[in-house]
């Protein structure tokens, strides 16, 4: 098993004919992902790596049975794209686009809930269930099939961590990039619950960072509901207050969102914490 995505996901890529779209459709196909359609308004009839392009998601769903969308459109069109996917019956929406206004994200996060859809992101690198499917812009080369679940607010840092797991022969059930924005759909708690319910997953790695209280919320949740071992790394222990550290969500504001607070919460929840990103693999190896 795996969580959120597997070989049953039939993917439509919104923003298929741009540079990023064309490149990642190729990468996903190479990974084995079932990319069945692309959407770019006005470009119906074109193909990208043999994948047919449609004018809108509704047509793509009707013609190809797509049930999953990857959103790669520019930020100012993202809200429209996510709404379109959801209204077309798409049940899993992976939003890569960054710099989406927070108010837009708030609207579509709640609309996804109304639609009983899984929304990953925005500002997510995507999600991969090794051996099954990769939906997003994560590099395919870093993964190994296995039973560690990974959920992260970060991109490259996660690649680094997953790669170091792979180097030690520790495979992953699913690696989900939750996104670096303050307003995201799927949270640590959602990922934890789903990993907890997934028989294949034996342990969970969380990659957190400063900003917000997602890690503190997750820690409380772990104490109460999660029986599987959880490992974590928190980035930004030395970040100053009031500065956005690259990600829109990585900011200590009004005293909230410090790494110290997150580390303390995780320690209280018996989560094993790594000092360096590459240490995670050692901790997981020791445990198993």
């Amino acid at each position, binding site marked *: 098993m795996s969580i959120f995505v597997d070989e049953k996901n039939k993917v439509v890529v919104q923003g298929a004919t741009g540079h990023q779209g064309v490149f990642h459709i190729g990468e996903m196909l190479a990974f084995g992902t079932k990319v069945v359609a692309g959407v770019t308004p006005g470009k119906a009839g074109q193909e990208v790596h043999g994948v047919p392009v449609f004018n809108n998601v509704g047509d793509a769903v009707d013609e190809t049975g797509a049930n999953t969308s990857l959103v790669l459109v520019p930020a100012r069109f993202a809200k429209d794209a996510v709404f379109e996917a959801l209204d077309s019956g798409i049940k899993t929406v992976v939003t890569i686009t960054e710099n989406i206004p927070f*108010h837009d994200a708030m609207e579509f996060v709640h609309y996804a809930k109304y639609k009983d859809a899984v929304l990953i992101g925005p500002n997510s690198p995507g999600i991969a269930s090794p051996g099954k499917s990769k939906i997003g812009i994560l*590099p395919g080369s870093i993964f190994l099939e296995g039973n560690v679940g990974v959920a992260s607010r970060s991109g490259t840092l996660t690649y680094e961590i997953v790669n170091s797991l792979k180097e030690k022969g520790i495979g992953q059930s699913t690696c989900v990039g939750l996104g670096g924005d303050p307003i995201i759909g799927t949270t640590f708690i959602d990922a934890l619950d789903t990993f907890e319910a997934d028989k294949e997953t034996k342990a969970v790695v969380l990659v957190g960072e400063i900003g917000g209280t997602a890690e503190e919320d997750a820690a409380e949740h772990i104490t109460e509901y999660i029986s599987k071992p959880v490992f974590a790394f928190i*980035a*930004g222990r030395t*970040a100053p207050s009031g500065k956005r550290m*690259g990600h*829109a*969500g990585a900011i200590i504001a009004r005293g909230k969102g410090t790494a110290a607070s997150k580390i303390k919460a995780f320690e209280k929840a018996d989560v094993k914490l790594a000092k360096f990103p590459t240490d995670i693999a050692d901790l997981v190896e020791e445990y198993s």
Partner: protein
Amino acid sequence: MKLFEYRGKELFDKYGIAVPNGRLVKDEKDFSGLNFPFVLKAQVPIGGRGKAGGIKSAENLNEAKENFSKIMGMDIKGHTVRKVLAEEKVDIKKELYLSITLDRSKRMPLIMASGEGGMDIESVPDGKIFNEWVNPLIGIQSFHIRGIVSKLGLEKEEGKEVAKVISKIYKLFREYDCELVEINPLIIKKDGGVMALDSKVNINDDAMYRHPDIEPELVELTPLEKDAKEKGIAFIQLDGNIGVIANGAGLTMATLDALAHFKGAGGVFLDLGGTDDPEKVMQAFELMKKAKPKVIFLNLFGGITKCDTVAKGVKSVITKEGIDCPVITRIKGMNEDAAKEILKDAGLITATTLQDAARRSSDLAGGT
């Protein structure tokens, strides 16, 4: 983007929220037409200006002149005061607190209010702060406002006026894509009526394109940070002396943390993002050089990005322009061996692990 108090108040005025009679004053001539007593307030994008001497009252023209000259140009936590707001004093019956922020966990705007205003909201006990969350699918409704106003211990007419202000600031919050709107204090005047004595308005940077009427000021950034922002590079100046270039915000933060572990201190956070475009790499290095770090630490993980392409970009910058501080590199991922060869060839130090690189960078920088 944080707005100065006076600009926040311009927005309040636009939405029909009363603010004191006042104006920005550049010199003494600007005092004419303002009634004494008034208050002179340093315009800085940071809290705590009162304690720092940035707010002074004036009972007469002499006092006004004297205090104006004290405030204008003063330094408040690294920000030089270049704008001073003069505002007529108002007779206060009661001070309230009112704000709207983003609740990241609930993914909703959160309206907070308290009958105890005028002080730092963190020092108000939780039981005296009242919260209402507004689901963005329905927007603000009467019940949200009733839910708050009924708990503030106000007289009926006062409550009605405060209700109107809540409705107006929510509109402002939503229409201007705000991350924060805060009025502290919101006052009930002795002669009735409600007025915002201060303003904190913070607009989501990513939504600025929808608000062409808001002139960007980026008051909280250093000159180099402004330069970087215009170039679209995530670049932040910190207190230390090691310049960190990495790809990805999380990795860049983790690199800074690793330095701290070895008593090194980051002086620059520079996130290359997913790029391996030589032009972008060059711009990044140029910015880094301007920040004059003692050591540069380049930490790359190549996933989609190919390490050797970035390395070539780095080499060409260094070959063309030279570099006057040591550069420690740690490269991992796609085509890492080729990348290491290129960087070695350019005379840079290549470390094997993150820990090794962080230790060596910290040592070279001489600790904090």
